């Protein structure tokens, strides 16, 4: 039985999270047998065959002129059609902005359950099980799928991409589907603010976050300079977001973004339970705080106690020296 992977593209570019999903699909396919099939919704084929290098055996291409931008209703119809066509054992989505919107729609169309934001997937015999954080990472659910197919969305940055198989092509096949684009719907009419350069918080390898210890918005330059030196994305605690020092999109935590980078640096952040919820699954955590009793040190792998106004510039300088 196959594993179906939703291939997410924006502006003709397949997004990295889809390669992570393909990576997990190849591991599942190895233990359960069957091909890895991608399904991509787009207005034109921007080289889907090359997804063979990331592990896809076949890619179903759902083409529609309205699919140049994301259309949840239309994409859901196409993905449900792909499911009907290949009867997969499981369908994998990335738990990205697009995947989080699309996967529940597909689940409702198919009438099956969805495990969202999974951090581990495994097989027990031919049964599929998944692990997903709940209560903002304070606990985990182990879930199983009484209905078929199993639908899962995978947390970005947790699943490894497959080793590139250079020159391997996937078979690209058009996917016929019927969808009435003239029905009332939600239409993407534009986008704003794509700040070039830095990856999104949820997809960044390194995140440097600042908190109230920075004393004022003007001092966030310290955090930005460290982030630049590390090639990192800037995050923030809720305290500084609520104070208007930083935009909402940068908030890390229970009511902000959940991040799992390989390195998370918390600068002047106390480590309230709601903040920890958003970053405690990071691979390595560094805390800089003047209070040795700050709860952030309980989750940090490495800590420096002291004044961030001294430590951060020194760290930035030391990191720059490495390159």
């Amino acid at each position, binding site marked *: 039985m196959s594993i179906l992977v939703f291939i997410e593209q924006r502006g003709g570019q397949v*997004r990295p999270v889809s390669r992570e999903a393909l990576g997990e699909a190849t591991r599942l396919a190895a233990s359960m047998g069957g091909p890895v099939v991608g399904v991509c919704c787009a207005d034109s084929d921007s080289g889907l065959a090359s997804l063979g290098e990331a592990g896809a055996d076949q890619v179903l291409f759902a083409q529609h002129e309205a699919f140049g*931008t994301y259309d*949840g209703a239309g994409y*859901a119809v196409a993905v449900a059609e792909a499911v009907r066509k290949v009867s997969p054992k499981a369908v994998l989505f990335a738990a990205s*902005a697009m995947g989080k919107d699309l996967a*529940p729609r597909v*689940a*409702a*169309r198919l009438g*099956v*359950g*969805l*495990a969202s*934001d999974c951090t581990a997937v495994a097989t027990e015999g031919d049964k599929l099980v998944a692990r997903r*954080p*709940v*209560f*903002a*990472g*304070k606990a985990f*659910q*182990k*879930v199983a799928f*009484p209905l078929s197919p199993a639908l899962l969305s995978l947390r970005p940055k947790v699943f490894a991409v497959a080793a590139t198989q250079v020159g391997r092509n996937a078979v690209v096949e058009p996917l016929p589907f019927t969808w009435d684009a003239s029905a*009332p*719907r*939600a239409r*993407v*009419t534009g*986008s704003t*603010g*794509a700040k070039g350069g830095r*990856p*999104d918080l949820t997809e960044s390898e*390194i995140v440097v976050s600042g908190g109230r210890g920075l004393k004022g918005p003007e001092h966030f330059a310290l955090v930005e300079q460290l982030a630049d030196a*590390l090639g990192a994305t800037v995050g923030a605690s809720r305290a500084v977001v609520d104070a208007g020092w930083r935009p909402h*999109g940068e908030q890390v935590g*229970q*009511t*902000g973004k959940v991040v799992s980078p*390989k*390195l998370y640096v918390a600068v002047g952040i106390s480590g309230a339970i709601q903040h920890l919820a958003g970053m*405690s699954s990071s*691979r*390595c*955590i*560094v805390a800089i705080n003047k209070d040795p009793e700050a709860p952030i*040190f*309980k989750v*940090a*792998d*490495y*800590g*420096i*106690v*002291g004044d961030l106004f*001294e*430590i951060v510039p020194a760290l930035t300088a*030391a990191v720059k020296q*490495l390159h």
Partner: protein
Amino acid sequence: MLQVVCIKQVADTETRVKVAADGRTLDPSGVTWILNPYDEFAVEEALRLKAKLATGEVVAISLGGASVATTLRNALAMGADRALHLRNDTPSPDALAVARALADAIRALAPGIVWFGKSAVDDDGAQVGAMVAELLDLPCVTVVAKFDHQGAIAIVEREIEGGREVVEVALPAVFTTDKGLNEPRYASLKGIMAAKKKPIEERAIDLGAVNLEVEALELPAPRAAGRIIGEGAAAVPELVRVLREEAKVI
């Protein structure tokens, strides 16, 4: 225009999670119950739109056990006109089962807008809103950070990786709300008094078969205790060394 707001009662975000005797759900003893923080944005936005249009009705709906009535009362105190309690005592039912029950109740109300929070902070599912939209065959925008009502349509913004998407939606439609959409009001004393007289209809419902089975609720292995590298800027060279050589992250 009638607006529906779906609200969930959840454990307070400060809750220390204990696993119940069934091994699958939260032990409810000692838990403080609150209105899901994201749903506050949904209630607020509905109330603001009603005020702007100077007409219409806001109906709050919640599915859950007896205690849910308190949370519905909160929404009424904020300003919702009436409430519907879909009574079912199953602890943490799956999203599709909930969505089906909500969709059935909502259909009969023929609302102009159905509001949800983007995610419930207990199961962190972020599923129910989009599922209901699909079941009702209504247009849907999730994770809305900006909302502008313009007659038969709404122009909204949602956050995506590295930016925002602007979406134009024909009403009736479903929206799920993100933090930053608005600043939810606190219930006033007058609101709290008024809420006592507002109606809450209780309706017993069935949830049907399980669509996603929770086999276990487990606590994470505690992170191995970290270490303090040192104090002040003098500790920086050692930090850089361990990040390179031990953790291999820079």
